[in-house]
């Protein structure tokens, strides 16, 4: 209401107004509306013309689409008349006027709240539909999918943006390191490779070599993470020796190597999951192996600059863990809240640890007494992913979300923040959704959650709309 009066330009200031003739239809708006399009846009450029002549500016485009885009500029929301056009048409027209970002923000899903989300789309590449890896990139809801040796990109409204073929036969890890560049690796072929998505060419690659050690040869990539300036990739040799390489993002050259370990036991095998924490500059790596005697693995935190280990935990450990024999099946880091979440392999319990207050046994096991939630027994086939301060857990085929309960309007002390009862568990999916297949990977980006299932073609997009 209060900003409404600013739209009511008074009759005494006609200079603020501007008239446009788009495809013979007349529009009138204010300079400030056009300038909200951003300084580089065509519309803002039009508004800067001298306004001495009162003749409307003629733009030779479709008036109907323009009226929609003008509505977006005026109200920041997409009117229902936009349904007459495909998202593709709108995006193209918006890029003509240079207001793509405004259209994007008007079309984006609302902030993801797991308790209100539902499956909106299944993205299925045309061939080799079994997705081996994917990366939700850029925070705008787009996703790049690796399937077989191909990478297929889907843009922010999940329409197909393009497919490129790489030289790899089976991409098992992918990370979008630049808006147009993906870092890919495979567990059957050596090296980390950078592909430019716009032209499909390989722009660089990195191999782990050691002049003093000829056994370091044909090392394959297990996991990729990136910071604003660096790419981190864990490499694994055929004889299981492994390390983490730091690659400069702009030159795509190897900077340094750290965390080299022999790989002879579960406590020093290659990290299968890497996460970079931008706030603290820490790199979190974890690996889990499952065998006849259950799960074993480690979580390790490195200082990304020095390569020093800051904290680590091994499970099953010798320490005085309250949950001996119930080692974790998957771990993930919540970068927003600086917390670490794990899911136990035997009990299926979810535990949380505060990254700023790690110790011998930092885990707080979350309690959930919701009687309507079936006890799912083990957590063996579970994956866990933190996104937007919520924890998404895939147990077999079921997708559930742990969300934090708002306590009071007053701020709570940090000490009491991680308590057993501070999270509530709810299903995201319906019963019939869970029967489609075991959830293999969950990743969030751009207020969308992407879920990939074992032996199911394509990935599912979940959001709040």
């Amino acid at each position, binding site marked *: *209401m209060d900003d*409404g*009066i600013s*739209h*009511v*330009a*008074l*009759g*005494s200031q*006609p200079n603020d*107004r501007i*008239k446009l003739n788009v495809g013979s*239809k*007349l*529009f*009138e*708006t*204010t300079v400030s*509306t056009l300038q909200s399009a951003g300084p580089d846009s065509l519309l803002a450029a039009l508004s800067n013309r001298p306004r001495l002549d*009162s*003749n*409307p500016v003629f733009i030779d485009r479709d008036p109907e689409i323009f*009226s929609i885009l*003008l*509505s977006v500029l*005026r*109200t920041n*929301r997409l*009117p*229902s*008349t936009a349904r007459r056009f495909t998202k593709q048409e709108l995006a193209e027209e918006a890029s003509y006027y240079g207001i793509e970002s405004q259209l994007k923000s008007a079309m984006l899903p609302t902030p993801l*709240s797991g*308790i*209100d*989300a*539902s499956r909106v789309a299944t993205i299925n590449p045309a061939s080799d539909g079994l997705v081996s890896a994917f990366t939700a990139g850029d925070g705008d809801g787009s996703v790049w999918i690796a399937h077989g040796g191909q990478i297929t990109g889907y843009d922010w409204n999940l329409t197909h943006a393009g497919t490129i073929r790489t030289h790899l036969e089976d991409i098992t890890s992918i990370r979008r390191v630049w808006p147009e560049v993906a870092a890919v690796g495979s567990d059957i072929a050596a090296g980390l490779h950078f592909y430019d998505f716009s032209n499909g060419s390989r722009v660089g690659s990195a191999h782990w070599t050691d002049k003093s050690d000829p056994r370091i040869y044909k090392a394959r990539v297990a996991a990729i993470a990136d910071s604003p300036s660096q790419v981190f990739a864990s490499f694994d040799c055929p004889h299981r020796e492994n390390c983490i390489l730091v690659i400069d993002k702009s030159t795509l050259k190897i900077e340094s190597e750290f965390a080299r370990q022999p790989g002879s036991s579960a406590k020093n095998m290659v990290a299968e999951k890497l996460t970079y924490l931008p706030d603290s500059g820490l790199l979190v790596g974890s690996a889990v192996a499952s065998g006849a005697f259950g799960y074993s693995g480690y979580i390790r935190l490195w200082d990304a600059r020095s390569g020093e280990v800051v904290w680590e935990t091994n499970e099953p450990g010798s320490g005085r863990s309250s949950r001996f024999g119930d080692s974790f099946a998957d771990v993930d880091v919540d970068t927003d809240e600086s917390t670490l979440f794990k899911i136990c392999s035997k009990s299926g319990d979810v535990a949380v640890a505060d990254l700023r207050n790690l110790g011998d046994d930092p885990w707080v096991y979350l309690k959930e*007494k*919701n*009687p*309507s939630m079936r006890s799912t027994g083990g957590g063996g086939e579970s994956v866990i992913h933190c996104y937007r301060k919520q924890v998404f857990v895939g147990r077999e085929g079921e997708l559930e979300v742990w*969300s*934090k*309960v*708002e*306590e*009071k*309007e007053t701020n709570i002390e940090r000490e009491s923040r991680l308590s057993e009862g501070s999270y*509530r568990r*709810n*299903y*995201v*999916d*319906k*019963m019939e959704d869970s029967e489609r297949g075991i959830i293999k990977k969950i990743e969030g980006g751009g207020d969308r959650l992407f879920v990939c299932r074992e032996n199911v073609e394509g990935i599912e997009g979940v959001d709040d709309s």
Partner: protein
Amino acid sequence: MPPFADSRPPANAFHQSKPDQSSNLVTIDVGGQLFQTTKQTLTIAGPKSLFSRVSSVSDQYGVPFVDRDPELFSILLSLLRTGHLPSKAKTFDLQDLISEAQFYGIENLLVASQSNPSQFEAFNLENSLILPLSGRDSPSAISTTPYGSIHVAHGSKITSFDWSLQRKSTILTQFTAVDSLLTISPNLAAAGATDFSGLQIIDLDNGFVRETLNWENVTRSSSTVQAIGSSPEFLFTSFESGRRNSNSIMVFDLQDSFRPVTEIGHNEIFGANLDSAIPATKLNWVSSYNLLMASGTHSGPSGVLGNIKFWDLRSGNAVWEVKEKVDCFADVTVSDDLSAIFKVGVNSGEVFFTDLRTIGAENSWVCLGNKRKVVNGKKEGFGCKIENHGNQVFCSKGGDLELWSEVQMGSSRNSEDGLEERVFRKNLMGRAKDMGGNRITHLGFGGNKMFMTRKDQQFVEVWQIVLGSVGFAIFWVSAACPAVPFLPIGRTAGSLLGDMLMVISRVISPNQAYAAIDLSIPGRLFRTVVASVYIERAASLRCSDTWENCSRGNVGMQRACFTQSESCLTFQALYS
């Protein structure tokens, strides 16, 4: 195309013809399109809206310019002029109109035209919409508001749908399941559970707990919430102590930040007095008697026992008490409009009623259904729900819903207690496809809609009238509020006008309309209707205060054909 033929800016036009201060006309430039209207039309929007500011601005500066979409503006201007949405509004989503109406500050008018409680028509409700809920929890409580928004508690979540049922939001609560939910204000709800201590006042926008209200018995143990009710001034909460050895109804002040006002019906259980051990599980405010009805049951090995008490808040005494020992109620409701209590018997599964005027009498329940049914040990009424809205009573039996309505009999046969015998008849609601679903667990009413949830189903069914909405809008405006200032026509005329508009706005074509009328009805009748509508409309525009005379004089023909609004309804039903 806009009436914007010449490209001169409106400011020039203003210089050429200085606006007359006394002129009633207001010209507005919206997104390059000029609109003209009167100040009276703009004042309907209310003092806080942008429209009234526009009209004040135009006095000082000439033609005001609003940088918004002209098409949406023209629809909202029609809404201001006529009180209903024009048919061209159908090209837009309601969501567009809502956000535009919010910008201009006239959302209340839009609500009144689209979701008005007076549009509620029990006989014409159809299962027309499903509101899906995320996750796998079935609804455990619902709460509706007079203008048709609904809050649904499922599991630890509360999902809210706004009055247009298009915007949805979900918040997380501290409960594992919410058992009682009541909306206090548009963004505040009271929630409680039978396994959670205290009543929480929850901000529905962000899920914050504003306040936790508690009741403590002498042992200061925790207390759970069994039921919530409210009157315009007070919030009532039925608490039971955690050890289930005492219960009480607390009265909180709604206007004074939930200050505890008084406590009624406090029971401490010592020994085997079963009756006092029953906490109230339903609280209804009876505004015409200024009493609170509290009811509760207890199921034991000897059968189901229950009691219904009417509390006077001032004295804190129960003025009436009904003890239920034989065929106790499974659910009970009180209707102000019908001045009666209705129950569904847990054993018989039949609907009973008792007149509030004879409440003190022994065995006052009158069976409305099968009177001769043998009450055996079965609990046929188990899980049945009974609710009332307006002067109808809705009773669920398993997956079916019965609608009980009173038939006004002209000749009243007085029974022995001096009151006339009342006649209630039932209808089964819905089409064949709606029958026999899962058991109905909750019923709610708001706006022109009925809401229903079923066992193990993660959605809310919405039952509403499916008619040509434009024509219907006209109908309700005239039928429900004859005092609407901008449409001073009678109920009958309104419904006919509505019918005509349905034809005009191509909800139905005239041929369809003809076809809908049985051939035995002469076409002349239809023409009469057309004529009378036009006569009425013309008359209503000219003279609103002398309307009664006009209608008696000029359109007697029409009166002869349609003397009662009921026949108009039939007419409408034919169309749809």
